Structure formats: structure tokens, C-alpha cells
């Protein structure tokens, strides 16, 4: 099923990716051919088959939900491109 240029722009927006006009065209073609390949899955009858979310080999134990000391705030903020007063700093969230 071929994708349209508008669909590619919509997906890029959902994925928070700014694409160049050349990339938009290239991805339209490449994603269409990969999806075309993936479409062979639709020919398989799976009406009686349950899904596999992940392939655990057995029961997985849960650990006790007990509080543990977190990472020190300064070691986490050390990797942030911008921080102030012990917080991550971001541009305005609302339109200005």
C-alpha cells in the first residue's frame, strides 16, 4: 500500500521529526516499499492465534514495591543541556 506525501508528513509530525523536503520524498518511496513487504503478513490466517507480546520462558517474579534511594539529583541534571534551580529547563510549552 503506497503512502502519500501527506501521510509521511503526518507521521513525521506524530514522531516529532522535522524532515527536509528531500527526505519527505525519499521516505515516501522507501517506507512504501517496506510496508508493501510487510503486507504479506496480512495473508496469514491468525483468527485462532493469540498474540505474543514478548517471549518470556516462564513466570517472571515481581520485586517488592519498596522505596529505594534515587540517583542524586545533581548527577542526573549533569547531563541536561539546560537546568536551573535543580530542574530541567525547557522553552515555553504554550504558544507565545
Amino acid at each position, binding site marked *: 500500500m503506497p503512502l502519500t506525501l501527506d501521510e509521511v508528513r503526518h507521521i513525521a509530525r506524530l514522531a516529532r521529526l522535522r524532515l527536509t523536503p528531500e527526505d519527505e520524498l525519499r521516505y515516501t518511496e522507501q517506507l512504501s516499499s517496506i510496508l508493501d513487504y510487510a503486507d504479506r503478513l496480512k495473508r496469514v490466517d491468525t483468527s485462532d492465534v493469540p498474540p505474543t507480546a514478548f517471549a518470556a*520462558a516462564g513466570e517472571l517474579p515481581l520485586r517488592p514495591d519498596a522505596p529505594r534511594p534515587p540517583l542524586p539529583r545533581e548527577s542526573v541534571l549533569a547531563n541536561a543541556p539546560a537546568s536551573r534551580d535543580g530542574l530541567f529547563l525547557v*522553552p515555553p510549552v504554550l504558544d507565545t
Partner: protein
Amino acid sequence: MTDLTDLSLLDAASALRAGRVSSLELTRACLERIAALDPALHAFLAVAQATAEAQAAAADRRLAEARRQGEETSPLLGIPIAVKDVLCVQGLPATAGSKILEGFRPPYSATAVTRLTDAGAVILGKTNTDEFAMGSSTENSAYGVTRNPWALDRVPGGSSGGSAAAVAARLCFAALGTDTGGSVRQPASFCGVTGLKPTYGRVSRYGLIAYGSSLDSVGALARSAADAAAVFAAMAGHDPLDSTSLPEPAPEIDGEPSLDGLRIGVPAEYFIEGLQPQVERAVRAAVEVLRALGASVGEVHLPHTDLALPVYYVIALAEASANLARYDGVRFGPRRPTQGGPSRGVSPLLDQYLSTRGELFGPEVKRRIMLGTYALSAGYYDAYYGQAQRVRTLIRRDFARAFTEVDVIACPVAPTTAFPIGVHGDDPLSMYLEDVFTLPANLAGVPGLALPVGFDDGGLPIGMQLNGPALSEPLLLRVGHAYQQATDWHRRAPTVTA
């Protein structure tokens, strides 16, 4: 001993325990070899000389103390290893091969790494990888391709190509890799080393930069099955920090050389058009070696094999699109400035997300995020992601049925030997086909072991894969060890000149 780096991991461990060599000598021998050869190979993204020498000195003190007390020590104590750059090592950079994590220094280490350093392993540095482990050649690394030590114009495979090249070129005694669709086994095959992808959940994923969370596993690359077994045994076992970690403790691995009574199945569906004849011949010859060691060999069927590739790409990419949402230029990595200027419906924060992710992710990562986003988007979720999960069940059942008939499946790792750098160009689908024989094990969650079993006419290594049921790593490693006792392919080393 003139060239310490030629020792196997286990021989180096014996020499350390006996006091014939020090960890500092081994570590410096590796660091010198990295300095001499890595400019040609580019296996490493970061070399940690100072911390490696400090870890080696600490290991030497522990070794001396253990000798005084007559105590047993881990075979990893004092052994220099390398770590793929998608695993966090506290204090060292972790880029995942991406510009979007340039400069990131994780504040904690992955459990797999911590278990090895607790055992006394020395971390030489971080190895190159396709960006976020998405690729089969390391060509998708934002920091440049790694070259195959057997032929510098060829890829080392991927995504753990840096680790495989480093082990093959004797820059380290073993290396950690990760395997989501073949990323330990395929580069092991291309570089002529041994690579173990454990059962899903056998080695903790805590501190692994996630790609496809239902498929990712942390594995080992080494020069033999016995060396890989030592690394695996040191890092396997339950971890409360990974909710998919299996409760079983790390296994004991024995070296019983006879394969009497072992049933080996060769899957008919893997010997397809596109499989290089020299690869097929070498793999079939290796199966005959196993037969001569006492195994019985028969054909087995995995009828849904041809669906593994589309299932994998829908599931892995859907999971990747969710996992990679965290790279937004807020908490780590660089950020790109907003483009400024008013734009309808685009807040300054959204504008920054679009710039940072659009500019700092590479083309293959963006392609995969886009496909995964599409497969999960309204109206397409069940047709793609839901259907892929149901077909995944059919692939799991293929393996479950096969393992009622045989103990081990033997097949090629990849349809070809190492291909020339650049040959797949801008054709993602042709690159994806390199992984057709390795993806099914990730979908089924079962372990796989890649072993060198010969060379093609161009002198490039060929690999055979052994698959077994969940938790069968001890069996796979025992079969691999028996094969390597009977053959010497794993002892061949490339001649790398700077």
C-alpha cells in the same frame, strides 16, 4: 610470552592466577594494540586508558590476595574486555552510535557491566555500533564505519560490529554485544569469532539503551565457546531491576566433549536462494563434524521462517518508536535551537523537539521511527502490530515443535560472508535481508550461538548458528566447545596492519 594478546581469555586467566602475568601487563598490551591498530579498524568509540589501568591495578591486588589465601577467583578477574556503546558504564560516554547522545555520561552502569566489573574485569572502552543498534554493518554509526579485520574494505557486520572486530583483531579478550535481531551473531560470523545471544531475560537489560524491548538481549563475543561461557556465566542470572529478568540463577557449564545421543536438526527452510554456496558447504561440513562427535542429524521444519522478517520489522520498529521518544533534548544529549518565527500550532518546546530529533537522529533511525509510528497509529495498529504479534506466536510454535524432535538446530548465521562497505547503499530492504536467519530466535526468545566454521575463497569467515530451547545456553556452549576441540577455525586470526 611475546604477544600477550594472543592468549585466550581462559589461558590469560590461568596465567593471572599463577602469577605469570599481571592484569596491568595484559591491559597495557591491549591498550598498545588498540593504539596501533584501531586507527585502521575504528572498533572503539572511546578508550578508557586511565580507568582501565586503575581497574587492572586493583585486580592485581585482588589476585595477589587470593593467591595468599588460596582462594578461588572468577576467570574474569583482571581480564581486559570491551563494551558495546549501547550499554551504560558509569563515568564513560554512552553514545549508542548517535549524535543525539553525544557527550552523555550515564550516572549508573548496566547490570551486565556491573557483574563483570564486580568479578574483576577491566573495561578498556566502548565499541562502535550502528546507531541505536539499528543495522547490520556499523555503517549506520554516526561516528563512522568499523572495518572488518579480515578485509578492511568490508563491513564487520552489525550492529555489534565494533565488539566483533575488536575481539577478532585481539584488541581485547572478549566483548559485550547486544542482539535484537542478530546483532551479536551476525558480526561474530563476519569477523570469525564466537558470539552468544542468550535466552530472552537471561541477562538483565537494566542499563541497556533500549531498541526493541521484547527482543533485546545482552550477549558475549569471544574467541571460543569456552571463553564466551565464562563471560556469560559471570553476567547471567536474575536482576530485580529488570522486570523481564528470568528467576533462574547463572548456570554451570561443563566441557563434556562427547555428543553421543544429541539430536541435531537442520532446518530445510534456511537453505534458500540467496544463500552463498560456500556458506552452505561450510555449514554442512560443520554439521558432519558434530555427527562424527556422536550426534544424530536430521532435517527439521520451521514453516513460518519466511514471515520472520516482516514480523520482526513491525514489532522491533513499533517498540523502537516508543523507546526513542525519550530523546527530546531535555534530559540528556545536545539540543538544537528552535527555528524561531511564529508557526501555527507549534509551541517553542515542540519546535525544539522537531529540530533536535530531526537533525540529530540519522537517516536509518528516522526511517525506523517513522515506520514504527505508522504501525502503531490509529487505524493501522491491529493490521500491522496486532497481526505481527499473532504471527510471532506461529514462529514461537515452530521452534517449540522442532524442539520436541531435536535438541539443537544448526543453520547458517547469515546468507553471505562480510559484504563490501557501501554495497547496500540507500536500499534498506536489501540490508534487512542479511538478518533472515537470526531474527527468528529473537522472536521466539530462544538462545543462539555463532561459531566460525570456515572461510570463503576470498578469505572471509563463515559462521554456523546453533539454536536451542529457552535456557539451553549450557548445551549450546557444550556443543560449540566440542566442535572447537575438534577443529581450529576459531584459532585463526587476521593479520591487521596499521
